Structure formats: structure tokens, C-alpha cells
């Protein structure tokens, strides 16, 4: 990143396709190839994406730093900026700043078992962590991936995750709230119904990461607590209005915490000690 912390760098869209009806996958690359290969980040970090004259917003990185060169985002159409983003085609240029945020403490995860719990759009940041762990498979213990979506058509990266089920070094459990296709072969029910598949968990030796819609957290955390996992080993990534990304502008402040530099990854311990965090 240059000295000017407010200046975006140009990145080219190299690939895009729809993940679901309203979520699109974007693969981008810094225009400068050398920079593209050097760009390093952590799973769980985010970047500020902007379009000329429209605005700027934070998006979680969905790709893994273990596969450098390309940055991936999964973006839902919700507002003015994302609507414009959806109109962009391959080879068009967007402005990107970052990476920002603390990211997941992957060093602490080494030799530990990892449970990744995902709801809906939470698959975007946690896919980064999942792929990172799989790319460095020898560094981690058992890996569990639990993903719940509303309907099969709303499951992000559905094909990719279904393929992961073939692997024997990972426990991949997928679920949908409701199957409207009649062809869904996996579990049906909310994401907490997958917890009964978790047996022989060694709580002291396990890290759990959670990301999903706000309503999901309470129920999922209840289940995780039942497993006996210590509060500081439960990590979640939270959403606030990150704006400058560098802990200055004040928009993402929750109490004394700047989500953009102290977060967006927080432990459950932080959350119960901070009012208004979720």
C-alpha cells in the first residue's frame, strides 16, 4: 500500500459469475502483475472496493492468501454501489484499498481442530479460511465445515462445497432450511441441527469460527457452549460500517473498538464484554 492511506489502487475484474440470484462472484487482480503476486493478506480480512464516483464499501475477501495473484469477493446486491458493481463486466477497472482488519489468527489454529460454522452470506469470509486450512492441511488437526443456507439455490459455492464432501481429510456438512427442489441429498434443517454430527470433540483443543446473519449467532453459540469450547476459542466476524479502514474516521466504532483495525474478527469473550457488539 502506498503512503497515502486513502488512495485506492486500480484492479481489473478478470472473472465474474453469479453464485445465487443476488450474489455475484468477482475475481479481481491488481493491474500491476508484480503487485498482484506480492499482495498478501489473512483469511478474515476485508478490502474497500470503490467505483469511480459511486462510492466505496468494505467487502470480505473470499479467496485464500495461499493462492496469490487473484482476489475474490462474493457480493450481494443490496445498495447503490453493489448495483453498479453488478453492471461491470470483465476487464473493467475498480478501485481497491486494503487489505484491512485483523483477520483470523491462523497461527494460533496450528495443530488445533477447527470447526467452521457458516450461515448464508457468511460463506464468503469463511471460505477464505477453509481454503487456507485445506491448502496447508498438514498444519491443522481435524477440520469441520458446517454450512446452512435457506434453500439449495441460495447456497454459495454449492458445487465447490459438494465436491469437498469427496475429500477424506475434512468433515463437510451442508444443510438447507427448506428443500424446494426435491433433489437435495444433504441434511435439511437449520445449521444447529448439524451439531449432532460433531462427536468426539476435544474442546480445549478446538477453535470455532462463526459467520452468518445476526439471528444465527445466539443459537449457534448456545450449541458451541454445549460442546464445552472455551469462550476465547470461539471467533466470529462481525459487520459494521467500515469506511476508512485505518481506524480514523469513526464510522465503525463500537464502544472503544474500531471494527476496521481491532476486528472484524472478535472472540466470544470480547462480545460478551462489549455492549452493542452484536
Amino acid at each position, binding site marked *: 500500500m502506498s503512503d497515502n492511506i486513502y*488512495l485506492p489502487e486500480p484492479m481489473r475484474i478478470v472473472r465474474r459469475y453469479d453464485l445465487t440470484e443476488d450474489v455475484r462472484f468477482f475475481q479481481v487482480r491488481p493491474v500491476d502483475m508484480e503487485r498482484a503476486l506480492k499482495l498478501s493478506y489473512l483469511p478474515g480480512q476485508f478490502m474497500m472496493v470503490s467505483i469511480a464516483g459511486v462510492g466505496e*464499501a468494505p467487502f470480505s475477501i473470499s479467496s485464500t492468501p495461499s493462492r496469490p495473484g487473484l482476489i475474490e469477493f462474493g457480493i450481494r446486491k443490496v445498495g447503490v454501489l453493489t448495483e453498479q458493481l453488478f453492471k461491470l463486466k470483465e476487464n473493467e477497472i475498480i478501485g481497491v484499498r486494503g487489505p484491512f482488519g485483523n483477520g483470523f489468527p491462523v497461527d494460533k489454529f496450528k495443530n488445533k481442530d477447527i470447526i467452521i460454522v457458516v450461515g448464508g452470506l457468511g460463506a464468503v469470509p469463511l471460505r477464505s479460511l477453509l481454503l487456507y486450512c485445506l491448502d496447508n492441511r498438514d498444519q491443522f488437526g481435524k477440520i469441520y465445515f458446517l454450512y446452512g443456507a435457506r434453500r439449495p439455490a441460495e447456497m454459495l459455492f454449492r458445487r465447490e462445497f459438494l465436491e469437498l464432501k469427496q475429500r477424506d481429510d475434512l468433515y463437510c456438512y451442508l444443510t438447507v432450511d427448506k428443500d424446494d427442489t426435491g433433489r437435495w441429498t444433504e441434511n435439511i434443517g437449520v445449521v444447529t441441527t448439524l451439531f449432532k454430527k460433531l462427536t468426539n470433540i476435544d474442546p480445549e483443543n478446538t477453535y470455532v469460527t462463526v459467520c452468518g446473519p445476526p439471528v444465527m449467532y445466539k443459537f449457534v453459540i448456545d450449541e458451541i457452549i454445549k460442546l464445552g469450547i472455551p469462550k476465547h476459542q470461539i471467533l466470529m466476524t462481525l459487520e*459494521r460500517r467500515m469506511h476508512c479502514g485505518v481506524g480514523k474516521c*469513526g464510522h465503525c466504532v*463500537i464502544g472503544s473498538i474500531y471494527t476496521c483495525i481491532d476486528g472484524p474478527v472478535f472472540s466470544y469473550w470480547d462480545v460478551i464484554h462489549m455492549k452493542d457488539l452484536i
Partner: protein
Amino acid sequence: MALYFLSRYHLTGWLRKLKEKYQVILPQYYEAKLYYEKLNGENVLSEENFYHALRKIRPANPLKEFFFTPKLKVGGLVENKAVLVPFDDTPRIIIGVKNCDLHGLRVHEKMYLAAEYQDPFHKHERSRTIIISADCPEPEETCFCNLLDLKPYPEIISDIIITPITGGYLFESISRVGEDLIINTDHNFRAATQENIAERAAIRSYALEKLQKINQKSLSVELSEHIKHKTEHEFWQTHALSCVECFGCLLICPTCFCFLLYDVPINDKGFERYKIWDACYYNAYARVGGGANPRAEFGQRFRNRFHCKFMNFYWEHKFYACSGCGRCFAVCMGKIDIRKILVEV
């Protein structure tokens, strides 16, 4: 470092010499109100005005204007090339800064310079500025720096401190730069006498006494804890009732540092990015893309201001992000007195 005396007669000569080499900014009268203004050919420099301006409290506009302008171009991207903003390298001197504004600058220093990421613009503005601060001999009804353990005379950051005394000005050089400015620009400075120094001491103790009379109720030493435990929404809601939501208090605050980045398109070729003052009272301030708003009610946003200034900043840096300048309720149409809330909490 050392104390000097300059007579009223010689002051304008010294200022003129400064103007040859520096851009000079000082408090000027406009219809009985003071504003920090650049000294140029148009505004006539009168010693009489300067003397009275120094004896008044802080100017109406906050000092932060000169380090972070309300609208600042920070760069951009045109035809995929970064737009670099040229820095203005003219050295400048700001004269007549009161302790409350210096304190505001200290808050900005903590936010913009003493952190993981540094703001290059603030850093540059600081590097080209010499600060000549001044005593505040006549605190007014809106002043409350004493409640926040600040003094009505400069304690920090300054290069030189000036005190208007009988027949002239007492100069105290604080930094090497300040010392140079005194001994190398004018030969009319002479060493201050014991009398001059005693007069300054008397002026300072008078100002302190006056402040104590204005603000008789002192704040709790555990103010941050009280604010933390004041969780009842009704308390904040009641105090926020008369607020007309003009947000003048936040924009004029010398310590408020929040900003918004926004882009202006340049003929489909790219955009320029601006950094503008923002206020945490705006409804959309913390709203996220999906529409969720962690501080949807005004009472919550009102409380957030107190949390920011008197709790979180205090925990982090051991001083309050409020300078007691009183601009926020001087400007308030709803007559919300921050002192009242701080005492009640």
C-alpha cells in the same frame, strides 16, 4: 527556554517581518467576533486589535480547520493512474492559539499520527506549522477547561507562548524553532523583567479563579465510569430532546476527528477522492450496506458522543477528547449544555 518582552509599539514590525517569510494566521475581529484568519493584504494589521484579540477567549472557528480542512482532496484515480495531491510547502505560523485548541490538536495527533496508520495530510500540515500560543486571561461563561483538568494558559505543543501584559507582550520560547524566531527576526526583543513574569503569574491565577467561579460544580474523578454505567436510554433521550439535529456542535468541535470519504467522478475517466468532516449524530453514520443500524435511535447516537469523548478516548489515552472550549453549546440552538450532562451523569 527563555522569556522576552516586546513592547506594543514594536509588535506590528515583528509581525510584518514574519509575514515576509511565513504565511501568518491569527485571530481577527469581524463584527465583534473573533476568527482565525490568514493575514493578507486586505485585512489591516492593527496592534490595538491584536492586543484585544489575544485577551479574548478562543476564536469562533476551531483550529482543526488548518490541519484538516472541511473538504480535503486526498487523491484519486484517473485513467487508472493515481492522482497525487501536491502538498503546500509554504511555512506558516499560527498565532494566538489557546490551550483548548492546543488540546484539540493533541487529540488529532493521537488519532492521525500516533497510530498504526498515519494520515499523510495531517502529518504534512503539522510539519510546516509553527504554533505561537497565548494565555487566556479572561475566560467567559462558556469556558469549562478547568473541569477537565486543563489550564487557561498553554501547556502543550506550542513553540512560543505569548501573554499580553502592561505595555507589551511577554514571550516565552518553548522550542528551538520558537527561540530562533524571536532572536533572529527582530532586535527589539529584550529580556523579560521579574515584574513582567510576576504580572503573568497574576494574570494566570486570576484566570484560574474566574474559571472556578464560572464552573463551581466539579466533575467526578471517575467520570468515565459514571458514563459507562449510565445505561438508561431515557437519560440520554431526555437530554437529547431539545436537539434540533443540526450537528453544529460536532462540526465546530476542535477535537472531533470523524470524516467521510467520497468520490467525485471526472468525466467518466476516473474520480477524485475527498475527505470531509462528518458527525456521528447522522442517522446513516453507522448504517451498514444491508440496512442494519447499530445506533438507529437518536438517543443512542447522542450517548455515543459522550462515550467517545469521555470514556473510550480517556481509557485509551488517559485524557478526555474534550477541551472545554464551549463552542458546542455556544453554537447550540437547542441550548444543550454539555456541562450539565457531565455533572448529572
